C-alpha cells in the first residue's frame, strides 16, 4: 500500500489548480448568473489536454491515467462546477467508450478531435420517460441498407446545445429489452438532429441541458459502437467510469464551499468572539474536512482500480454515492456557517448548494448507486450462489 502521487499526477494537480485559481474561480459566479457556456475555459481545457486526459497520446489525448483524471476533475470543479461537468462528460462519457469499444476508423475520426478539444461530445441515454430504468427507452435505430434510421427523443443531455458528436444509445431491436440496445456515434455534421429547448436548472447553469430530437435521422452503420445488442453494456460500462468524474466534481464543489466557509469563520465575529472558535462551528469544520478526505480516497481507490483493469463498478458507485451526499452535506454546512450571508448571492455559498445537488441525481441517482453497492456486497456473502 502506498499513498503518494507520482510526479506526473502532482504536475496535473498543480496545472489544474493554477488554472482554476486564475481563470475559473474569478468567473464562476458570472457563469452561474448568466447561464452562459464557459467557452473560453473549455478552450483552455483543450490546450491543457484536459478534454482527453486518459486518452493515449497516439489518439490525441494527454496520455495520463484515470487517477490524474480524477485529480484534475476535482481541481477544475473546485473552480467552476459547470466547467467540471462539461469536462467530465467529454472525457468519461464520450472519449472513454470510443477508446474502449471503438475501432481504429472511429478513433481516428472522432476520438482524436474530441480528445484534442476540436470537437465537443455529449452522451444520450436518458429519455423523457426513462432515466434510472434506462432499458425502458423508446428511441429506435432501425437498420435500413447501410444506415440506421433513428427516431425518438433523448432528454437531459449535457452539452447538448454545443456538442457536435453524440454517443447515442437506442433500441436496434425494439422487441428485446437490454439485449436489443445498441450504441452509436452520431456526428451532428453528418447526421443533423434537432435540439430541443435548453432546460432552466437549479445549478450548474453554465452547462447546457437539452433534449435531442431524432426524426428519421440516418446514421451510417459504420458508426455503430460495439456489436449490435451490446449498447446497454457500453452504456453501463461507460457510466461506471463516469461516476468517478462526477464524484470528483462533487468533491471539488465541496472543497471550495469548505474553504470559503473556513475563511469566513475566521473573519466573522459574534458575542465578541471569532465564530470559528465556537464549538459548534469547529465541529462542523472538522467533520467537513474529514468527510472531504474520505471522499477523495474513495474516488482515488476507484480510479486506481480502473487503471489496473479491475472490476471497479462497486468502487465507483461507492465513490459517487459518498462524494455526492458528502458534497451536499458540506455545502449545506458551509451555507449555515455564513448565516444570512449564505442565503444571498453576495457570497458563493448558495451557489455551491445548488451545484452540489445535481451530483446526487445524474449518472445514476443515489438510489441506483445503493442498489449497485448492495447487490455487489450481498453477492460477496451469498454462499448459496457460489
Amino acid at each position, binding site marked *: 500500500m502506498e499513498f503518494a502521487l507520482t510526479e506526473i499526477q502532482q504536475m496535473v494537480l498543480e496545472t489544474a489548480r493554477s488554472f482554476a485559481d486564475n481563470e475559473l474561480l474569478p468567473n464562476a459566479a458570472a457563469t452561474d448568473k448568466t447561464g452562459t457556456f464557459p467557452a473560453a475555459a473549455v478552450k483552455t481545457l483543450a490546450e491543457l489536454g484536459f478534454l482527453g486526459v486518459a486518452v493515449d497520446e497516439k489518439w490525441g489525448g494527454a496520455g495520463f491515467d484515470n487517477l490524474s483524471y480524477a485529480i484534475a476533475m476535482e481541481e477544475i470543479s473546485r473552480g467552476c462546477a459547470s466547467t467540471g461537468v462539461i469536462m467530465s462528460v467529454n472525457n468519461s462519457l464520450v472519449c472513454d467508450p470510443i477508446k474502449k469499444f471503438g475501432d481504429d476508423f472511429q478513433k481516428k475520426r472522432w476520438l482524436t478531435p474530441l480528445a484534442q478539444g476540436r470537437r465537443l461530445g455529449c452522451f444520450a441515454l436518458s429519455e423523457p420517460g426513462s432515466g434510472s430504468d434506462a432499458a425502458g427507452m423508446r428511441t429506435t435505430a432501425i437498420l435500413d441498407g447501410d444506415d440506421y434510421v433513428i427516431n425518438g427523443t433523448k432528454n437531459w443531455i449535457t452539452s447538448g446545445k454545443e456538442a457536435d458528436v453524440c454517443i447515442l444509445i437506442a433500441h436496434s431491436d425494439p422487441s428485446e429489452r437490454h439485449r436489443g440496445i445498441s450504441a452509436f456515434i452520431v456526428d451532428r455534421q453528418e447526421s443533423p438532429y434537432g435540439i430541443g429547448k435548453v432546460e432552466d436548472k437549479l445549478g450548474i447553469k453554465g452547462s447546457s441541458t437539452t433534449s435531442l430530437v431524432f426524426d428519421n435521422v440516418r446514421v451510417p452503420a459504420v458508426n455503430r459502437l460495439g456489436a449490435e445488442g451490446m449498447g446497454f453494456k457500453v452504456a453501463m460500462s461507460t457510466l461506471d467510469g463516469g461516476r468517478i468524474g462526477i464524484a470528483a466534481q462533487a468533491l471539488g464543489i465541496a472543497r471550495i464551499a469548505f474553504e470559503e466557509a473556513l475563511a469566513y469563520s475566521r473573519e466573522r465575529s459574534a458575542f465578541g468572539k471569532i465564530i470559528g472558535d465556537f464549538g459548534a462551528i469547529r465541529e462542523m469544520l472538522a467533520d467537513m474536512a*474529514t468527510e472531504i*478526505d474520505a471522499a477523495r480516497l474513495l474516488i*482515488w481507490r476507484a480510479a486506481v482500480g480502473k487503471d489496473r483493469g479491475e472490476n471497479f463498478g462497486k468502487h465507483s458507485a461507492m465513490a459517487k454515492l*459518498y462524494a455526492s451526499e458528502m458534497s451536499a452535506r458540506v455545502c449545506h454546512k458551509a451555507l449555515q456557517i455564513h448565516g444570512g450571508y449564505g442565503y444571498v448571492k453576495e457570497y458563493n455559498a448558495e451557489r455551491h448548494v445548488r451545484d452540489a445537488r445535481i451530483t446526487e441525481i445524474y449518472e445514476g441517482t443515489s438510489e441506483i448507486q445503493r*442498489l449497485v453497492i448492495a447487490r455487489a456486497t*450481498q453477492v460477496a456473502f451469498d454462499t448459496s450462489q457460489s
Partner: protein
Amino acid sequence: MNFELDETQEMIRDSVRSFVAGRVSQPAMKWNEGHGDAREALCELAGLGLLGVLVSEKAGGAGLDVLTLAISLAELARGDAGLAAMVAHHNAVALGHLLAAGYDNKPQLQRFAQGDALLCRAASEGSDHLDGATITTTATKQADGAWSLKGHKRLVPLGNLASHSIVTAMTEAGPIALLVDLDAAGVTRTLSDTLVGLRTCDLADLTFEAVAVPEANFLGDAAAVASRVAALARITTAAIALGVTRAALAAGVTYSLERKQFGKPIARFQPIQWQTADSATELEAAELLTWRAAWQLSTSGATAHSVEKAAIFALESAQKVADRALQMHGGYGYTVDFPVERHFRDAATLRILADGPDVQRVAIAKGLATGANGVR
C-alpha cells in the same frame, strides 16, 4: 497510489485470519461472558510475532511498520475486539512509548517483544482523561537516585497480566514516565469495573504507594513522546474499529440473506439493501482513511490530522454499522445468541482506548484555524 497489500502484509493478514478462525471465533463468546480468559491466545500470538511488531528484528521484534500492525489488528478484531485491544495496547501504546523514548535495555526489550512478558502503560487517572496535563500521580527523586512513585491509575489495559507498566507521573520539572515493575512492593492491582464492551480485554486499576523505581527505569519527559503515543493509540483503535465494522457488516448481510419474511429473503427488501450499501461504503472509506494515516505514520509522519480523521471516521462508522446490523436481526439481534450484540457493545466501548471523537474534532479544528492542515 496503490491500495494492494504487499507480500509481508498479505502473509501476516492471512496468518492472523487463520488464527482467528481456529483459535478466536469460538472462544470469543465465552471470553466475553467472563468464562476463562484469553491469556493462552495471547501467548500464541507471540508465536506469530504479533507482540513485538514495531520492535526491530535486532532487538528481538518483528521489525514491521505501523501499517502492518494496523492490518493485523483489524483482522484480529474481526474475531475479538477485546483481544485486539490488548495486542494494540502492548505493541503500540506501551512498546510504542518505550521505543519513542529511546529505551535501550536490550534483554528487557526483547522479553516484551517476544511476549515473554507483557507491558502496559498507565496514563489515565479517570476524570482527567480528556486533559492529560493534570496528572496527580507524583514521582519524587530519592537520595539514592531512585524515584518514589505515588498515585492511582484507572482502566489500564493489561493491568493484571502485564509484568511491567509505563507510568506517567508529575515531578517538579514536569511530567515524566517511569518503567515500573508491577510486582514491586507498594503496587496494588484491582480488577476494573466491567465495561459495556471489549470484555475480553484485561483492565485493572493500579495504585502505587511509595513504590521505589530504580533510576535506570527513568524514561524521560512524558510530554516529548505524548503526540507519537497518542497517534499510535488512535490509529490502532481505528484499526480495531475496522475489524468490528467488518464483523458487524458480515453478520448483518449473512443474516439478511438467510432470514425470510413475506416469502423472500429480507436481503431483497430495499430498506435492508440501503443499509447494506451505506455500511459497505462507510467501511471502505474508514479503511482507506486508516490505511493512509497508518502509511503516513510508517513513512514520513502524519499530516493534516490524518490520524484523527481516520479515528473519528472509523469509530463512528463502527457504531453506525453495528447498529444497522443489529436492526437487521430484528429481535434476535437483541439476544446473546448472535454475535451482533457483542459487536454493537464493542463498537460503543472503543473510544475508551483513545481520546473520543470529540477531542479529536477539536484537534482538527484547531489545525484548520491556524492553517496547519488544509484539505489539500
